[in-house]
């Protein structure tokens, strides 16, 4: 099955006629992703990607005409939250928002609307997801992947590529690799995806790539301690040596109640049975140590 993206993915690219949108749509199509439509308001009726993909003015038109079930957003920050809401309203089930630099408060109603529509939003400010050998949605370079049975979840972009490359170099293929995004307000958390991977018959091991700040890693670890006991799992936390206090004042410290440091995340993950690597290159070895034989 894999999670989020796969052979059943019928992708609509919002912002397909823009520079990034076109470049990455081409890469996604080359990887084998089924792109059924593009959306750019005012450019409906044209065709993108050398005439192979019809462009529509609205997402709802694109869904009606092509049966798209997934969208990937390359719309600039000012219009991206609206693009997310448009996709949710049109009935898209899985929405990836690649756009970075979206004002945080704009995402609050967008995330809420997605939830009410029963859809799932990945991102914003995320690299997307790839199910190797099946489909990729987003900007993760296709070359880093290998087909297999390890699920990879990360908060970062390039660090994801690094970790996935290390797995591939060691001959450990992936079921799905997902970057959830580094912004303050995101649609899908580590916990949500651990739950999806747990339910996925084609995922036998987990790699979690976190970083300092917030408490998402701790929350995910607490759930994993009870629900992922028998699955080999490893993690890496970026920012062990980062200076404290570069982001927020008192109120931030109050929300996390002292958590958010690398030490707190490593401790929570280790208590939940994750083996925590000191470098991304150690992840494959640790996964073997944890009993993964794939």
């Amino acid at each position, binding site marked *: 099955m894999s999670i989020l993206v796969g052979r059943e993915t019928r992708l609509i690219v919002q912002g397909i006629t823009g520079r990034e949108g076109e470049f990455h749509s081409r890469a996604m199509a080359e990887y084998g992703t089924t792109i059924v439509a593009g959306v750019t308001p005012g450019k409906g009726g044209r065709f993108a990607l050398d005439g192979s993909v019809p462009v529509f003015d609205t997402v709802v038109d694109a869904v009606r005409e092509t049966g798209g079930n997934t969208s990937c957003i390359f719309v600039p920050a000012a219009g991206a939250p609206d693009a997310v809401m448009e996709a949710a309203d049109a009935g898209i089930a899985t929405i990836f928002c690649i756009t970075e630099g979206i*004002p945080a408060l704009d995402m609050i109603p967008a995330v809420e609307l997605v939830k009410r529509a029963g859809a799932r939003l990945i991102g914003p400010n995320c690299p997307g997801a790839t199910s190797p050998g099946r489909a990729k949605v987003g900007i993760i370079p296709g070359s880093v992947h290998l087909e297999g049975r390890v699920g990879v979840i990360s908060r970062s*972009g390039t660090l994801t590529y690094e970790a996935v490359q290390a797995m591939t170099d060691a001959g450990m293929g992936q079921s799905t690799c997902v970057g959830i995004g580094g912004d303050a307000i995101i649609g899908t958390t580590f916990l949500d995806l651990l739950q999806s991977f747990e339910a996925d018959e084609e995922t036998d091991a987990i790699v979690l790539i976190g970083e300092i700040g917030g408490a998402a890693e701790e929350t995910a670890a607490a759930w994993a301690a009870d629900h992922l006991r028998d699955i080999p799992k490893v993690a890496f936390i*970026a920012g062990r040596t*980062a200076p404290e206090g570069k982001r*927020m004042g*008192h109120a931030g410290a109050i929300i996390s109640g002292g958590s958010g440091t690398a030490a707190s995340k490593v401790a929570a993950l280790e208590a939940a049975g994750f083996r925590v690597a000191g470098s*991304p290159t150690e992840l494959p070895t640790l996964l073997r140590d944890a009993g993964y034989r794939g």
Partner: protein
Amino acid sequence: MKIQEADAKSLLVAQGLPVPGWEVAHTPAQARAAAERILATGAEAVVIKAQVLVGGRGKAGGVKLASSTDEAERVASAILGMEIKGITVRKVLVAAAADIAREFYMAAVLDRAAGRILLMGSAEGGVEIEQVAVDHPEAIVRHHADPMLGLLDFQAREFAFSMGLGGHLKAAVAIAKGLVRTMLAYDADLVEINPLAMVREAGPDGVTVERLVCLDAKVTLDDSALARHPQLEALRDADEEDPADREAREAGLTFIKLDGTIGCMVNGAGLAMTTMDLVKRAGGEPANFLDIGGGARSDKVATAMRIILADPKVDAILVNIFGGITRGDEVARGLIEARAVQERDVPMVVRIVGTNATEAASLLEEARFETAVSLDEAAAKAVAASRGAAA
């Protein structure tokens, strides 16, 4: 972006919140003149507060009372020029000293985990609010604003009652709603009042009355939203921004200076932190965090190199690029251009993988750069180069 207390207070006033008046002084003479005006209104003393973008001003001796113009000048001259956590104090806020009956804490903050605006309050205001959060989490009242409708009246009332402000309901509700309104108006991710004070003031007929006022204010703004609030850019404190930080920001780079000797240039925040961690693990000390961002072109790379080399402590440089949106050959070209004009020759270890890595490799080989294949190898080589330079 952090802004000074005085600027934060101006934003609160613009949103209709009760903030006692203040003046800003850059010299002891200005502080004296301000104190004279404030004392003439009948205040018994003035408070003089260092304006710096770091916490712990009070403990550092940056907040003092003065009951005469002479004393105000003396206190201001002691505070101006003082260093607080490495920042030189260049201005002070002068205000009438309040007669405080009780101190509360109130803040609106972006709650990442919940994806909502969180209103927090406590009857235990004052400086050590983080400690209250750890020792008595139950002493902090929390309410989430509705994601679509914001903070509703009944929510603000519930909040005020549970903070023990039922006796001043109207004022407390107005302040709670005002904090959320301020957040939305300026795209702030934190609007914090500590203390929110119940002060005693002389009423119109000479009888002492109690009034709820914002005595201190801390506001941080969402950098991603500054583009739509051009007027807020003027609140950026040029005195407290390092020239290297400014050059980096204007070039679209994320740069944080550290104390070590190995300059780092990386694409992506997570990978940049990881690179620092691995330098440290290999026995070195990173000189900076520097994320060139996605899709960086050669000119951006050259700027990044100039900023790194401006730090005299840097004796080796580690470049780590995993190309996705960023093209490896663009970075390689930028490095070659930068080296051609740089004034200081520092050993450099370059690792470029991902998009267009092959083209990058041949460019780097031709220009005789030292390269590395894995991240661990790159970190080890950079640490060795730094040791060689220091020896």
